[in-house]
């Protein structure tokens, strides 16, 4: 199966703008960031959460708590995947009691990743609230999961693929819609 780039949806500036806006929304909704912990879901949620933590530090004069969540061991499709995904590690070293978690991921699609993330989070502690921030919401939910902060709503067909590139994991900051070609 070959995927071909079809449309560029966000360039570097667009992505920065979207992340800034979402950061403002997070601070607004939570009346500051005292209680907030930004938790990036591996892999690309991690640099996105870091980016938003940088913006929040600029806007609020204080850096929010930041964590990483690995959902590998909680996936519902683990036994169907070969080779199985590798564990990258969870790092959420705070007592979650009384805190508001903002889960951060690159693409919201079926909702299954977020379902796994919620399970993983609840095994670590009992936060007051869990909110969800995604750079792209592409629709096609299979579970009743809804984002609180969205960088870009992107209606797609399920035969398409949304490719998010984020530095430093990738070479640039871009979002593309790709389509399958038979060639």
């Amino acid at each position, binding site marked *: 199966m070959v995927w071909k780039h079809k449309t560029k949806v966000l360039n570097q500036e667009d992505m920065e703008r979207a992340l800034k806006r979402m950061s403002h929304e997070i601070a607004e909704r939570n009346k500051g960031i005292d209680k907030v912990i930004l938790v990036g879901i591996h892999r690309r949620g991690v640099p996105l959460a870091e980016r938003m933590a940088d913006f929040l530090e600029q806007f609020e004069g204080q850096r929010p708590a930041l964590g990483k969540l*690995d959902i590998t061991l909680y996936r519902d499709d683990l*036994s169907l995947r070969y*080779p199985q995904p590798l564990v990258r590690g969870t790092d959420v070293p705070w007592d979650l009691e009384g805190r508001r978690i903002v889960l951060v991921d690159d693409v919201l699609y079926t909702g299954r990743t977020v379902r796994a993330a919620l399970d993983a989070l609840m095994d670590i502690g009992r936060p007051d609230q869990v909110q969800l921030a995604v750079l792209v919401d592409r629709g096609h939910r299979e579970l009743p999961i809804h984002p609180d902060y969205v960088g870009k709503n992107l209606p797609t067909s399920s035969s398409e693929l949304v490719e998010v590139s984020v530095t430093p994991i990738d070479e640039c900051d871009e979002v593309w819609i790709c389509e399958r070609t038979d060639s």
Partner: protein
Amino acid sequence: MVWKHRNLLDVDVLSREDLELLLDQSVHMEDLLNRPIKKVPALRGRMIVNLFFEASTRTRVSFELAEKFLGADVVNWSVSGSSISKGETLRDTAWTLEAMGADAVVVRHPMPGTPWYLKEKLKRASVFNAGDGAHAHPTQALLDVYTAWKHFDRSLDGRKIAIVGDILHSRVVRSDITAFATLGAKVTLSAPGSLMPRGHAHLNATYQADPREAVKDADMVYLLRIQRERQQDGLFPSFEEYHWRYGANEELMRYAKPGALVMHPGPINRGVEIASELADGPDSVILEQVRSGVATRMGLLYLCMGGAEA
């Protein structure tokens, strides 16, 4: 890097890349052990049978914890009171377990080669060797290299490791030499001639009859358990004499590098192969090995059973 193994009969099938991947995944498994809720659903719905034909507490409990923390269903099938004591053959036991839906069998048996035989007879289930006779004990080797690797900044290249004790009857040493050598460490063995296998040239290690020579400049000293029966077999005159000549104490450790790690697979015989002062001393990582055992067995089970078959 793709993990291709569905079983672990001995460590000789693991490449350096395999071992490094397993060590890396085990670090994340150890993180889970620090949490209030240690259980994850990675192997939910998988059934694992612990089939032990020999007394074992720590290995069996360690496997059982690893299996449970990964969310598998666990059955302990022991010899006494089971159909095995009624004369059932190993082959029939294997087929029975598979008919009950076992996805994996962890086996310990006094007869070398049993896990290989079991693997041949099982159509589908994974097999993990938890010790076969004096032959192999691959998961002990994994926990030993993991413990050392963590202490030596995640590299065993060029590290000098001395293993002292009953080499002849040890399944631990055979697997350990292979695993340590694969990761670039240099292993030196020391034992009385009566406890040393004949023709040890094929082992990937050098031999020094004098433990002080073996331990000289070592980064780590590994003591092997001396079983009480060996003295009755006349392989050494007395425990006192064994300890005087081959037992590890602070005096022997003076020949090693300062701060050299002290390891032992347990259970320890205080005052025989290891002095209490050393077993309880600051350089002893014996209890850390126990914890590493759970983490590395979780890493192994996850890699071998976590995903779909190729």
